[in-house]
């Protein structure tokens, strides 16, 4: 693996130096030339790329091939600013689809499977990426895209879909709807789910697995690097194998940029090894996680990354304390509430307030006001011990929090800083 990585890295650095003036300038400023990079041990000498660079270089500044050779663009949702537009040559598309095919295979998928893709198709990478991967594996592919929940369920049942690909929040919603329709885990033909594009907790995994009677696998990726499939979970369901023959991961200290030793928690950084149209050197993902080389029971020797705690842009700093929405989700599910919640952060009299809106469920409702108040207090206590700060809990009506068919909007930050 190291030999492959060394060879590919040298080529990739040479490519970006020659074809991407924006990054060449960065290298020159840092006093590095391709000759300084002799192996992956020299990776740390190269300057970082960040989302800010991508915005500055929008749209063509980081393009590594003439547009004539490009065949596709994909784009991020652009919720945090200007969209990122990524370019692909046919080679890049093939590489990306191979990565997704590995993810489907790791989830037990073969050409005997029927794979329903309920990720959005279009600019979002979820649909196109898994669609291509599913073709490569030879699954019968059902491109439902997202939305129209009852039709999704109809296809799953009528065409006996065995693998479902979508965001975890949409999977939870589909599960909820199937339960309402009286479908139990034994009635649902699905056996595996590949869920990604947003952070989700272990508890949410258990819930989805139990409701639908499936194994739920995480998948990770970014549009900047290609899309889903940069890393994927295997039968062990404990961390994601990185396709490191295409993407080298590093963990850095987000404040100093210094590379941290294996096993440390920090910001995940990726270097693409054989991308043509949109090469990325040391791209800062802002995801917080750790890497591990421990032996995996599935037999794969690819390095593993832990499930990111959430993107550092998802992380909220409330009264000086770091809060990840996934921590709040863990407490809710542990106490029997649904994973339908919204976090509202505001600033009142110069002090941050954290309000968690939680939907009431039939299981948690009782006619006894005292009992509901007690459960509400338990939730406040549970959040306090998980987060270290006090949150207000507001119980809201069922289905009053909008369900998402793509990425869920979990956080509303009203603070104007």
């Amino acid at each position, binding site marked *: 693996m190291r030999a492959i990585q060394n060879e590919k890295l040298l080529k990739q650095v040479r490519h970006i130096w020659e074809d991407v003036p924006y990054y060449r300038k960065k290298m020159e400023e840092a006093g590095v030339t391709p000759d300084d990079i002799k192996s992956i041990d020299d990776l740390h000498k190269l300057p970082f790329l960040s989302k800010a660079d991508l915005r500055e270089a929008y749209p063509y500044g980081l393009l590594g091939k003439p547009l004539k050779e490009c065949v596709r663009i994909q784009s991020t949702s652009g919720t945090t600013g200007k969209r990122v537009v990524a370019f692909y040559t046919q080679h890049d598309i093939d590489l990306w689809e191979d990565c997704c095919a590995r993810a489907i295979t790791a989830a037990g998928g073969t050409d005997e499977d029927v794979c329903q893709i309920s990720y959005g198709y279009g600019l979002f990478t979820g649909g196109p990426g898994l669609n291509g991967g599913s073709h490569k594996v030879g699954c019968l592919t059902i491109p439902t895209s997202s939305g129209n929940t009852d039709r999704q369920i109809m296809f799953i049942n009528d065409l006996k879909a065995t693998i479902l690909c979508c965001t975890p929040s949409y999977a939870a919603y589909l599960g909820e709807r199937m339960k309402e329709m009286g479908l139990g885990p034994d009635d649902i033909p699905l056996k595996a789910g590949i869920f990604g594009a947003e952070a989700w907790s272990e508890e949410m995994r258990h819930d989805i697995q139990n409701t639908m009677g499936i194994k739920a696998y995480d998948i990770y990726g970014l549009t900047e690097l290609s899309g889903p499939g940069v890393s994927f979970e295997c039968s062990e369901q404990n961390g994601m194998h990185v396709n490191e023959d295409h993407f080298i991961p590093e963990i850095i200290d987000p404040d100093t940029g210094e590379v941290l030793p294996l096993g440390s928690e920090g910001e995940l950084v990726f270097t693409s090894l054989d991308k043509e149209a949109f090469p990325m050197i040391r791209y800062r993902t802002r995801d917080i996680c750790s890497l591990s080389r421990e032996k995996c029971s599935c037999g794969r020797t690819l390095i593993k990354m832990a499930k990111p705690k959430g993107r550092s842009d998802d992380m909220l700093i409330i009264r000086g304390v770091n809060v990840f929405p996934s921590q709040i989700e863990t407490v809710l599910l542990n106490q029997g509430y649904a994973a339908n919640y919204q976090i509202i952060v505001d600033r009142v009299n110069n002090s941050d307030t954290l309000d968690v809106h939680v939907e009431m469920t039939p299981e948690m*409702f*009782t*006619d006894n006001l005292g009992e509901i*108040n007690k459960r509400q207090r338990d939730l406040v206590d549970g959040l306090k011990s998980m987060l270290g700060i006090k949150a207000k809990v507001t*119980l809201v*009506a069922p289905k009053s929090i909008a369900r998402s068919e793509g990425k869920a909007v979990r956080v509303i930050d009203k603070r104007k800083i």
Partner: protein
Amino acid sequence: MAIKQISVFLENKPGMLDKMTKVLADAGITLRALSLAETKDFGIVRMIVDDVYETATLLKDHDYISSRTPVVAVMIPDVVGGLNKVLTALTAADVNLEYMYSTLAGGQSGQAYMILRVEDTKKAEEALREAGFKLIEEFPD
């Protein structure tokens, strides 16, 4: 003998009760009694209706969360000390009262009714019957 009360979770916001009662009205459900228990954010609406099953199904279809609770409905003469006699009988039987509310849904009879939620419904019913009170399962139209 106990009758079923329906309790519904509602957010404490303008128009919530209006919306819920409209669902019932449109389906021709008659409300016999209603009481509200509220906190700052949410409330529980407790009500006695003419068709418990129909109401529960209707509420579920409209995404409301509700539960059914056994309560005792007792007829009390509308005279001074009427309620006190009920409570004295319950005290004597050592029955704890969680909450209660009244209704005048007695048609032309001129009677008042109390809806009682107690810890031990059976014991309360026996005590009240022994004290000569009339318990009802269905309200007169």
